[in-house]
C-alpha cells in the first residue's frame, strides 16, 4: 500500500495540501484589491459604447429627429415594446397626405435589447445609448416618450 494511504501518509498529505491552500489565500490577503468603487468612480467610469442601456432618438439642435413614422420598428419588435401614434398631414405643394409622427412611446420595462428595431430602421432614427442608470420606483415612469 503506497505511503500516501498509510495512517501517517494521509496526515502528511492532508497537512501539505491544506498548507498550500492557505499560502494562496495569504498571498491574496496582501495583493491589491480588484473592486471598482462604482458610485465614487461615476465620472471616470468607461462603459463600452456598444452597451445597450436604453433606446434614444437623437435630435439635432433645432429639435427635429429623423423618424418618418414608418412603423417598421414597431413591427419587428418581438414583444410589442414600441408604440407609435401618427397622424396624416396633407402636404401643401404636392397635396398628398403624409404620415407625421405624433408620439413615440417606448416601454423600457418590457424591452429585451435585441437591437432588431435599430437594424430595421431605414433612417437610423433610433439607437441604443449606454446610459444604465434607469432604476425607478414607479412602473409608469419606465414608459418613455422618445420624440421631443
Amino acid at each position, binding site marked *: 500500500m503506497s505511503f500516501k494511504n498509510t495512517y501517517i501518509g494521509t*496526515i502528511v498529505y492532508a497537512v501539505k495540501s*491544506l498548507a498550500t*491552500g*492557505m499560502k*494562496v*489565500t*495569504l498571498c*491574496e*490577503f496582501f*495583493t*491589491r*484589491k*480588484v*473592486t471598482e*468603487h462604482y458610485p465614487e468612480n461615476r465620472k471616470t467610469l468607461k462603459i463600452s459604447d456598444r452597451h445597450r442601456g436604453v433606446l434614444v432618438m437623437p435630435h439635432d439642435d433645432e429639435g427635429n429627429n429623423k423618424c418618418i413614422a414608418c412603423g417598421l420598428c414597431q413591427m419587428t419588435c418581438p414583444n410589442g415594446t414600441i408604440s407609435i401614434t401618427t397622424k396624416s398631414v396633407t402636404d401643401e405643394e404636392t397635396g398628398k397626405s403624409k404620415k407625421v409622427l405624433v408620439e413615440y412611446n417606448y416601454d423600457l420595462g418590457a424591452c429585451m435589447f435585441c437591437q432588431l428595431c435599430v437594424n430595421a430602421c431605414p433612417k437610423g432614427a433610433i439607437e441604443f445609448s449606454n446610459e444604465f442608470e434607469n432604476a425607478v420606483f414607479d412602473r409608469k415612469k419606465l414608459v418613455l416618450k422618445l420624440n421631443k
Partner: protein
Amino acid sequence: MTDFNTIIEAIDSSLNSMMPHSAAVLVECILAAVCAIGAYLVFAIIMIYMERKVCAAFQCRVGPDRVGKWGILQVFSDVFKMLIKEIIDIKNSDRILYNLAPFLVVMSSLITFSCLPFARGLQVLDFNIGIFFIMAASSFGILGILLAGWSSNNKFSMIGAIRSGGQMISYELSMGLSILTLVVLSGSMQISELVEDQTRGWFIFRGHIPAVIAFIMYIISGNAETNRAPFDLPEAESELTAGFHTEYSGMGFGLFYVAEFMNMFIIAGIASTIFLGGWAPFYISGLDGFNEAMCWIPGIVWFLGKTFFVIWLLMWIRWTFPRLRIDQVLVLEWKYMVPIGLLNLLIMTICVVMGWTF
C-alpha cells in the same frame, strides 16, 4: 505592570464604607455583570466588523467602506436593523423551548467569557479549577443549538441541530485532551496561576513539540466547537439553507449571530491564555533589559493582541477551506484527533517527568 488589584481593592473599601457589606457585594456583582456584558457587546461589534473586513481582504475585495469612515458604523447599522425586525412566532413550534434556545447559547458564552484573564487581577471569575469550569460551562451551549433546531418545527433545522450535537460533543473530547496536556505542563488549573507561571516564558515555547501539537489540535477542535468554516455543518448555507436558526428572525437570530462570534472570541481567548501566555509579556530568560522593556506594555494589550491574532488565524482557516461532510468530521475526530491527543499527552508527561521542558 499595572495591577488592577489595587483599583479593585479601592472600590471595594469605598463601597464597604458607604453601605453594609451585603449591599456592597450586591453592587459589586452588578458592576461586574455590567462590565462583562458591556465588554461582551463591544467585542462582538469589533469582531463582526473584523470578520467582514478580513473576509473581504482574503477575497481580494474591499468589504464595507461606505458607512462611516472605513465602514466602522456598518455593524451599528446592522444592530439597529436587527433590533427593529419583526419577530415571527412560528405556528406549531414548541414556544417555550423556541424562545429559550438563544438565551441558553448566549448565557453559556457569557459565563465562559467572564473567566478570561484580561489583565493581572482583571478577571471576573477565578476558581482554582478555572480551566475545568470553562470546559463545563462552554459545553451547555450545545443544548441551545439542539433546542433551537428541534423546537422550530422545520426539517432543515432539525437536521442541522442533530449534526451539531454529534459534532460538538465529539470535539469536546479532543479540546479537553489538548488543554489537559497544558495542565500537565503547568501543574495547576487556576487560570491566574497558569498565566503567572508563563511570565517566565510562554508554554508554547517551554512545552516545545507537544505544546505546538496541542495548539494545532486546539485550534481545529475550537473551530468545530464554534461551528465555523470547515466544520460549519449545523448552519451549512448551501445545504440546509440557514441550518438550526432558519426559523429565527429579528433578535432571536441576532442573539445566535452575536453568540457565534463571541464563542470564537472565547476560543481565541482561552488559546492565548494557556498557550501564548495571556497577559504575560514576551520573556527570554537572560535578556533582562529586553524583558524590562516588554513589561512596559500593559497586560491587557498583550492579551487582546494575542487573542485577535488567534481570531485572525481562525478567520484565515474559515475563508480558505470547503466544508466537511458529517462522516468525515467524525472520522477526523475519533480516528485521528483522539489518538494523537492521547499520544501527545503521554509525550508531555514524559517530558515533564524527565524535566526536558525549558
